[in-house]
């Protein structure tokens, strides 16, 4: 590690839930947006039902909740570009890369596990 980046921490957020039904995904996204201002090495992994957070064409009017899925599209503007999606989670739910709102890196579970292992901080949502 060079002196220049000695204070930069690798922080991974892990989205594991469907975006609606609980507040974890929404408040998780709020946390990511704030942390993005701190110029750390941020990444977000989507596993399990967490992959639904990135699904295109979500309609939330019927459940009376303001939709926030499009906010994931803003992450790029905050320099949060490392988005990883678990391949098996996506396939189990009948989804493919084309169903997702943003550009992501699709990885197998082992690769995501190895990435988690490299982090200084992992925060699940």
């Amino acid at each position, binding site marked *: 590690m060079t002196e220049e980046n000695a204070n930069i921490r690798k922080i991974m957020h892990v989205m594991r839930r469907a975006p609606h039904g609980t507040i974890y995904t929404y408040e998780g996204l709020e*946390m990511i947006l*704030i942390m993005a201002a701190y110029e750390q090495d941020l990444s977000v992994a989507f596993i399990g039902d967490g992959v639904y957070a990135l699904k295109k064409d979500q309609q939330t009017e019927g459940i009376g909740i303001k939709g926030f899925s499009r906010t994931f599209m803003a992450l790029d503007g905050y320099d949060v570009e490392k988005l990883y999606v678990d391949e098996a989670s996506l396939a189990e739910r009948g989804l493919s890369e084309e169903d997702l709102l943003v550009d992501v890196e699709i990885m197998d579970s082992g690769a995501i596990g190895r990435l988690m292992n490299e982090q200084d901080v992992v925060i699940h949502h």
Partner: protein
Amino acid sequence: MNIGILLKEGPYNHQASDTAYNFAEAAIARGHRIDAVFLYNDGVTNVSRLSDPPQDDRHVANRWSELAEKHGFKVLACIAASKRRGINDDILTKGSEITGLGTLTDIAIRNDRLVTFGD
């Protein structure tokens, strides 16, 4: 070791607050330092002094307050999560404060570990 704690669940409904408390006590007993406890999601209700459990049960909010005062750390509730859940400065236990997610980021950066409790 310097340790930050992130607690994401409220008391009583979920084991996370008790486990985090037991972890903090055990870590201190082993010579580690708790830097701060940051509350997120329903975790912010861990610092409401309006909490009034039956006398024969543990008082989770008071217990956090006492541990924090004794060992010189703060229990910090996220302001956005607090506002949603009716937690404000008027009802905080001693040793707790309302603050922003930037503080959590600082806690994550400056400590050897950030240990998360909750679903």
